């Protein structure tokens, strides 16, 4: 399996603060990868490292088998839509396309023109007066028409209204279907990722908490509910990710490849949102819980 993105011990330091530290993971080819994590987890830093905007302080990151960096060939293989989709406010839509043609030897002008037409954008309109959704679509067009092997998108839909968000993701899916491009899409909006992603990477405090095929991940996790029970009494093959208890009932989210045999449990499938939230809160609570040092004997 070829990897499109591979990080090993990757770290980036700003002054004394580490924005990303000791980050290692692999992303296989041909997937639409959702990179999820809370704000400040290092998603943007990670994508900037991947596209050569930043240089790592520690470790390595390779993209499409080559070390990421500020190299024209490598830059040509990766399309990037940055957060808040920066464009030149004073230049028209048509001039943005000409910029793309000037700066990318692999530019596909037919693709760019047809996408602009399809989106109903006026080529003479200045980018500064476009709506948020149109800006994002133009940025996606620019990134796509250079015919990259990998598309990196940093929170492209975060600031869009639901309709524009859906249209953007539809556009993205069309691109993926037509051009067989791998995609890494960062977001903290899990519901949006659920629609488009088939691979998930959960990044919390610069550590990868979970990564894998969405279908496999969904198949290997179960929500169990039943009479109150100590999670430590579960079989070894069932890893408890999240637990919540009331006086009489326990609800657990477990990871297991085996079927659940215990008839006491009501077994339910999990959604992607359940998974992401469970892993994110587990990482947050990873600090050892304080327990009373002295128990009172009765």
């Amino acid at each position, binding site marked *: 399996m070829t990897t499109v993105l591979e990080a090993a011990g990757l770290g980036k330091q700003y002054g004394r603060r580490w924005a990303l530290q000791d980050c290692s993971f692999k992303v296989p080819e041909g997937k639409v990868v959702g990179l999820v994590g809370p704000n400040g987890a290092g998603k943007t830093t990670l994508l*900037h490292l991947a*596209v*050569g*905007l*930043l*240089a790592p302080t520690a470790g390595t990151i390779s993209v499409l088998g080559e070390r990421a960096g*500020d*190299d*024209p*060939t490598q*830059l*040509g293989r*990766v*399309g*990037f839509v*940055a957060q*808040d989709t*920066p*464009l*030149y*406010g*004073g*230049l028209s839509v048509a*001039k943005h396309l*000409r*910029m*793309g043609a*000037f*700066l*990318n*030897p*692999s530019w596909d002008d037919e693709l760019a023109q047809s996408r602009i037409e399809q989106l109903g954008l006026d080529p003479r309109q200045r980018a500064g007066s476009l709506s948020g959704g149109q800006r994002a679509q133009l*940025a996606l067009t*620019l990134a796509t028409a*250079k015919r990259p092997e990998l598309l990196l998108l940093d929170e492209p839909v975060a600031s869009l209204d639901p309709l524009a968000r859906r249209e953007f993701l539809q556009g993205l899916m069309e691109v993926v279907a037509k051009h067989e491009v791998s995609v890494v899409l960062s977001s903290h909006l899990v519901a949006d990722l659920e629609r488009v992603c088939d691979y998930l990477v959960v990044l919390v405090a610069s550590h990868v908490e979970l990564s894998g095929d969405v279908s496999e991940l969904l198949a290997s996790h179960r929500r169990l509910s039943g009479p109150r029970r100590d999670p430590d009494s579960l079989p070894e093959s069932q890893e408890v990710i999240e637990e919540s208890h009331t006086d009489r009932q326990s609800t657990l989210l477990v990871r297991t490849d085996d079927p659940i045999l215990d008839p006491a449990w009501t077994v339910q499938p999990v959604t992607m949102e359940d998974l992401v939230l469970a892993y994110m809160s587990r990482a947050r609570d990873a600090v050892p819980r304080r327990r009373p040092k002295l128990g009172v004997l009765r």
Partner: protein
Amino acid sequence: MIRFAWMQSRTQALVAFGGLVVVAVVVAVTGPHLVHLYDTSVATCQARGDCQTATTAFLNEDHTLGVWLGVLVVAVPGILGVFWGAPLVARELETGSFRLAWTQSVSRKRWLAVKLGVVGLAALAVAGLLSLMATWWSSPIDRVNLNLFGVFDQRDIVPVGYAAFAFVLGVAAGVVIRRTLPAMATTLAAFVACRLAFNHWIRPHLIAPVVRNFALSIGGFGSTNGGPFTLIPNPPGIPNAWIISVQIRDRAGGGLANQYLQKVCPNLGQPPAPGTGGIPGGGVGARVAPGGANGLQECGVKLSAMFHEVVTYQPANRYWTFQWYELAIYLVASLILAGVCIWWVRRRLS
């Protein structure tokens, strides 16, 4: 990349071009008149014997326009640095569009090098054309004034060097400060400081000046900048020379002691009477002593038997050497600064 750099800077290039056209029209309308006036009045004044009136009348003609043209040539490099140089990278960093620009299939080094090249060459062209027009327009005036070094930085090729330096200085300020407005302010301050420092500390030392003895000519008696009262020598009339200093010396090289001066010219040195005016060429704060100009003249005649003037100066034929030296220094400094910008954008901004 060149075409993209041109696309981005086309508006400002058109504005600059428009400004040049306006200046060209003004210069083309008034210039021939000035040449004609020179040919008919100053050039033939010796035959008529009214050179004093002719030159005064000639220099008064279009005096204001000449001053403003000079101010423009001095100011335009700074303006280019502030409005073209400083925002070049700073605006991209400020608006975030660098994330779009640096992820196209062009390395950052090439991106900046081409932008520096395209906009920088445009800045050089603007300053060069402006200086060319100012130099042509002022040439009859310069022929009358005979003070080429006095307008050294408004003429010929040095404005091109200033423009290159101001532009790259602006880019560097933008790259380091990363915000447009502070970078613009810094550019202006740093450019003015560099120009002044160069004029005071570097230009006088580029070539060792000529030191020559001239016959003593007394310009006045007074004090310069609040110093003690003494005789102020008149600089000799060397056309187009840059007079650096004029000192009164005797044959052995000694100065003119005040006691000796009192002895030879006893009616000098009394406190100046109220109501006496300054003497032209006498320096700042120079005042006529009692006895007036006649007393001075007498004194000068008495002293010239023993004393002479030692004049330190740069002769007129070094004018172009100075122009080329200064241009070369500013251009080399610009290239070094451009290298620093590229290094900074590649290394420090990632």
